[in-house]
């Protein structure tokens, strides 16, 4: 077992652990807003670790070049996909993505800080724009 092999194995183990924990988070967390926070480790963190493992194993070859090219698309597109998803979830639930958000420094949680339950009356109607 070479040093490269050991480093690659450690990286692969780390990537697999990140994916397993994130997957558990997606299953366990309460709603789409909370679940979405566990997509970023799967879409950004783990692919970077996998790409590093491929680089350590193969060196700078066509394989690692293609992997890093694909990773570039993942890292650039992932955050904007998360942004579009949470915006769509907010519009779907509230009608406006701007409604109900607390100001910075206004404290944690609270009725304005939490997205309303689907089965409860909308308490943030007064904050809705337009």
């Amino acid at each position, binding site marked *: 077992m070479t040093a490269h*092999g050991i480093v*690659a*194995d450690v990286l*692969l*183990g780390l*990537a*697999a652990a990140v*994916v*397993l924990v*994130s*997957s*558990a988070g*997606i*299953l366990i967390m309460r*709603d*789409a807003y909370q*679940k*979405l926070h*566990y*997509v970023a480790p*799967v*879409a950004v963190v*783990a*692919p970077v670790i*996998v*790409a590093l*493992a*491929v680089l350590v*194993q*193969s060196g700078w070859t*066509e*394989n690692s070049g*293609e*992997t890093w*090219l*694909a*990773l570039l*698309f*993942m890292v650039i*597109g*992932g955050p*904007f*996909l*998360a942004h*579009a*998803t949470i*915006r*769509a*979830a907010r*519009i*779907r639930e509230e009608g406006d993505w701007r409604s109900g958000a607390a100001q910075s420094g206004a404290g944690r949680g609270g009725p304005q800080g939490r997205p309303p339950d689907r089965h409860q009356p909308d308490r943030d109607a007064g904050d809705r724009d337009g």
Partner: protein
Amino acid sequence: MNSFVIAAIVMLLAAIPCGIVVVRGTAMDAVVAYEAVSSIVFMVLVLLAEGFRRSGEFELPVHLAVLLFGSGLVFVRFLERWL
């Protein structure tokens, strides 16, 4: 069987909880889980291509990485406006 193939198998197992959410969750929960599964599939393809030492199979994850973004946006746009 080398460590890359083992890691791919472990990641496929990690797709099971996401699959449960796709089946049993709300539409928005399912889209979130779908985005995670797409990323897991991307990594599995890279790991299997490296594990089996097949250079030609690295092109599929490149295409998937591009299409993953577009497919997610399609679902998100439909759920935002029409479904």
